[in-house]
């Protein structure tokens, strides 16, 4: 299967500030990718590079085998729902669909009408008079009816109440089930994405901290608790992600493919949320300093 997004040493600088640094990714097609990180981590920058609204300062990025935004064919393959799921406040629902049909060669009008109908969106109503959830659904409809191979959504549910959030993700997943659609969506809350994504990228301070299949991430990360000890003396195949200590006890989050044999540790599973938080926290500065930094493991 071809990669949906490939980046090599990708970086973007705004005057003196690097919004994204040394980003290397290889995302297989057919996934629902969650891009998680705190506000200001560089999520929007990465997504804007992927749709071609920004050009890289360094490195390269390929989306579905082509350069983002390079040709009309490339533009038709990638759908983008920008932050805040924007719509035109003065245009009606019908106007939006008409606009979508004019601007997109692969427009699926039947799908768009069916979706707005099922959502109960009044065709004559202006977008400015819709609720936040309805506006988001309208923006999603435009993204889906374009029939892209890849749909990119920037923080689509951040502004929605829990019910609208659920309904939005239901609609999105339904589209994934019906069409052969890859999705990349960002959020600063992993809880929003936990059910829907099967591939996760954690972006912190303009760097990719970890990326991979959710299932593999969960299977290879463990919480170890035991008597106080120096975490730098872990076996070579155990990769330290986070460590915390009391005078008696040490708790570590490690990544390893190998079984953990040391009987001094109580080994526990961690949730996706804990995993993301462990990577989001600043690396622990123990005596060895930098050696403890989690490596930017991407694809194996």
């Amino acid at each position: 299967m071809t990669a949906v997004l490939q980046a090599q040493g990708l970086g973007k600088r705004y005057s003196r500030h690097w919004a994204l640094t040394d980003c290397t990714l290889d995302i297989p097609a057919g996934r629902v990718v969650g891009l998680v990180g705190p506000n200001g981590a560089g999520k929007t920058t990465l997504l804007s590079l992927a749709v071609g609204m920004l050009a890289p300062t360094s490195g390269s990025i390929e989306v579905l085998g082509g350069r983002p935004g390079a040709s009309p064919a490339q533009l038709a393959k990638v759908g983008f729902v920008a932050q805040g799921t924007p719509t035109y406040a003065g245009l009606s629902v019908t106007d939006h669909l008409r606009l979508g049909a004019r601007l997109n060669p692969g427009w699926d009008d039947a799908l768009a009408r069916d979706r707005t109908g099922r959502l109960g969106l009044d065709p004559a109503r202006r977008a400015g008079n819709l609720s936040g959830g309805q506006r988001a659904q309208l923006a999603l409809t435009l993204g889906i009816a374009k029939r892209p191979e890849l749909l990119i959504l920037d923080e689509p549910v951040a502004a929605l109440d829990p019910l609208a959030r659920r309904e939005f993700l239901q609609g999105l997943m339904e589209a994934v089930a019906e069409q052969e659609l890859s999705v990349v969506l960002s959020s600063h809350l992993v809880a929003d994405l936990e059910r829907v994504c099967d591939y996760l990228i954690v972006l912190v301070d303009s760097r990719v901290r970890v990326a991979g299949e959710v299932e593999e991430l969960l299977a290879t990360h463990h919480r170890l608790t035991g008597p106080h000890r120096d975490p730098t003396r872990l076996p070579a195949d155990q990769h330290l992600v986070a460590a915390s200590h009391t005078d008696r006890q040490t708790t570590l989050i490690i990544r390893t493919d190998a079984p953990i044999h040391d009987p001094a540790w109580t080994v526990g599973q961690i949730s996706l949320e804990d995993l993301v938080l462990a990577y989001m926290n600043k690396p622990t500065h123990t005596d060895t300093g930098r050696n403890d930094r989690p490596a930017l493991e991407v694809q194996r």
Partner: protein
Amino acid sequence: MIEFHLDDRSGLSPYLQLVRQVRQALRLGLLRKGDQLPTVKDVVARLAINPNTVLKAYRELEHEGLVAARPGVGTFVTATLADASLAAHDPLRQELRRWLAKAHRAGLDEESIEALFMTTFRTAAQEDIA
């Protein structure tokens, strides 16, 4: 037809929760041979989960010989779990009750009993694998 639900605090992956809910329904006789499972699209639209999660659960059930997919139609139950093992439940439950009473007499409280059971259960399961 059954309806799936997800418990975010169960600690089980969503795919495993779906598999277990089908097995449970089969054990309790809620699902019988020939019954149809909800379509992937229905499950996805209801639970807002990744379609691959549902597909994986259905493949696992198919692998276990419990269901079969009919392309373009749906996934149907082909076996039952409400079988002979159901008859064994009663005597096992009685034995477990006696064991619990013993544990109480030995001074174990509920948490200690649960901890003892779970560690023994896990060790036994691991030894089976090894």
